[in-house]
């Protein structure tokens, strides 16, 4: 069976390709060219990453191609990212990228070259439940990336393989070493791939977002400072608005219309619920409410809560405990028994 593996040049996708080869698949490596990194920045998907991926493909003896997804990436990931940030939200572009490009986009092209499935180096697993393909947390829970993948459709998951599902990061690294794969101990990309390596302000400037001077106010409405644009703030942020307030202060609200950033004590950054839209439901729900473990951010712990469906695509989640920094624009992903059963985009937190 022919499988197209998305190869970023990093250890994970390299080992994913190796594992598939070992299992006897007809493996084709593809590096997805998503955007043109500016010279000098150490962003992901730079020219060097393509070369790294090519080197790995050569050492594995598999065909390797670089496919251009620049236009669609700009349109479906970068532009919405900027738009959301400017309007005071904190978007998660990796979620949009996985939904539209890394999976759907790759699969469409893969099928045209005779592949039956795609594979990536994501830490995730897949289970078939009641005829639907659901994401499941992988063996290495610390590296679990299912949070970013919740919007990938069941149809696409039915034609996706996650070779790293049952391995830990260190097992994967060992495999790379034993196979002498030419992946260096590359520093893993921690931030958004197209921003990584430069301050967010600089990124926005390059894309034409201008400074908008506005007020920083406290919870009582007093003006305590100034900012150059709400787009570099996010709920729960502790820095970026000066010091000397006595107790630690956090961003508790971003008022886009008034161009204000509101800061306050930590307890005002705690929420008991969230209103969501653009919701996805992976299982036909028997009732309108579902108990689930909810993650409101990547790498945070899940919070038990009750999800109530509202209409076709909205929902309200009420948590059992207070949750820190429920942030508009981020996603809330619902888990049950380590399976992703749905999720949605946070419209606002409920105090």
């Amino acid at each position, binding site marked *: 069976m022919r499988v197209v593996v998305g190869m970023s040049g990093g250890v994970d996708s390299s080992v994913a390709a190796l594992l598939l080869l070992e299992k006897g698949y007809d493996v084709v490596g593809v*590096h997805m060219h998503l955007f043109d990194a500016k010279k000098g920045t150490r962003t992901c998907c730079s020219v060097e990453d393509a070369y790294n991926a090519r080197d790995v493909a050569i050492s594995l003896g598999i065909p390797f191609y670089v496919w251009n997804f620049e236009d669609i990436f700009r349109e479906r990931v970068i532009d919405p990212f900027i738009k959301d940030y400017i309007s005071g939200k904190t978007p998660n572009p990796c979620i949009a990228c996985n939904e539209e490009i890394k999976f759907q986009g790759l699969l469409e092209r893969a099928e045209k070259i005779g592949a039956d499935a795609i594979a990536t180096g994501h830490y995730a697993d897949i289970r078939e439940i009641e005829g639907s393909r659901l994401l499941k947390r992988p063996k290495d829970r610390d590296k679990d990336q299912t949070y970013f993948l919740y919007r990938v459709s069941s149809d696409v998951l039915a034609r996706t393989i996650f070779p790293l599902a049952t391995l830990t990061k260190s097992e994967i690294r060992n495999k790379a070493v034993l196979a002498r794969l030419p992946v260096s101990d590359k520093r893993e990309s921690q931030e958004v791939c197209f921003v990584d390596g430069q301050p967010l302000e600089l990124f926005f400037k390059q894309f034409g977002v201008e400074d908008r001077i506005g007020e920083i106010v406290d919870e009582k409405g007093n003006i305590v400072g100034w900012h150059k644009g709400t787009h570099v703030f996010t709920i729960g942020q502790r820095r970026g608005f000066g010091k000397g307030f006595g107790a630690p202060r956090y961003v508790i609200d971003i008022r886009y219309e008034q161009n204000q950033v509101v800061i306050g004590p930590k307890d005002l950054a705690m929420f008991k619920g969230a209103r969501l839209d653009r919701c996805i439901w992976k299982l036909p729900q028997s009732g309108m409410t579902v108990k689930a473990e909810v993650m409101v951010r990547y790498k945070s712990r899940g919070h038990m809560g009750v999800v109530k469906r509202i209409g076709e695509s909205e929902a309200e989640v009420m948590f059992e405990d207070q949750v820190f920094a429920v942030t508009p624009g981020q996603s809330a992903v619902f888990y049950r028994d380590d399976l992703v059963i749905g999720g949605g985009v946070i419209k606002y937190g409920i105090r």
Partner: protein
Amino acid sequence: MRIYLDHNATSPMLREVREAITLYLDNIFGNPMSIHEEGRKAREGIEKARKDIADVLGIKASDCFFTSGATEANNWVIYKFAQDHPKLGIAVSAVEHPSIIEPCNSLERDGINIVRIRVNKEARVDLDFLEKVLNQNKIGLVSVQAANNEVGTIQPISEVSKIVKGRGALLHIDATQALGRKDISDCFACADFVTLSSHKIGGPKGVGLLWIRPGVYLRQMIMGGGQERGKRAGTENVAGIVGFGVAVVVCEQKRPENVKRLTELRDRLWGGILSEIPDVVRNTPFEDCLCNTLNISFSSVLGELVVVRMDMAGVAISSGSACSSGAMSPSHVLLAMGKSKQEALESIRISLGWENTEEDIEMAKVLLVDAIKGIRGAI
């Protein structure tokens, strides 16, 4: 057994070339600048190559300067002319090779007046536009290729030359793609600088040549040990140059029969594709085009994917231009011809060469038709 149909990218080495080079890889290893016997033997090899090339092309050996390739030769002309004449503009066709375009872009950022000459929908230089450009700007150098690498269009260089000479400017012709595929004596008759490349005609990679008309001055770009009569420093790529020499001689000798044969093969391939996929679009002009090139597009089919499928089926073709990461971006030539970005991304380029046979073409046609139908069917 693979079928190689990407000769505009590079060509397999001719048998004669390989045989000639072998001597220079083992026994004749000296530095041509050395005065001892080892050096002299190496020197003899490159001067013979220079003379052979000059004789077969009808030019003078002393006007030929070896470089590391066409890219270097092109950079040399553009940069050094600009450096010596910063107040004069440079006009280049919109469909030149990146080794002309990129130096011009760089010079433009530094304040040199660069004008790009429009082309028509066959990628041919718009002569009226050229005249207008030369009337409205003080242009000192015009660079127009002899033939285009992406679609195969042959440029009207005698007409270009008349216009350029009429304005007292210098003319550079990048004849890389034309060598061996058409008679290029008109280039040497018309131009002040001509670029040639070795690896497109079955010679080794990493060698090229700049011909400079006697009486025309171009300062050296690469400085150092005074090689190439002080015009291009650097220890000569002896084996490469020797191979280049042999390649030029062989391909010029075989040119008439090659042109005839490749034209037939190309036309047969085109007819075969057209009969099975009637909506194929031909980007290569029907007249005045290189004998070996066929650039075509299929609507709603990404050229990138066709290349991959053909590669997997054992056939090498190409599409568009590759950016530095290796991804395909729309060919600037097709865009200059008036194609949309989408149309440009749907194109593929098939370019034949000395070792292709009728069987190759038949097989390629079958596989290509299969690939297109497969991709369209998979929607």
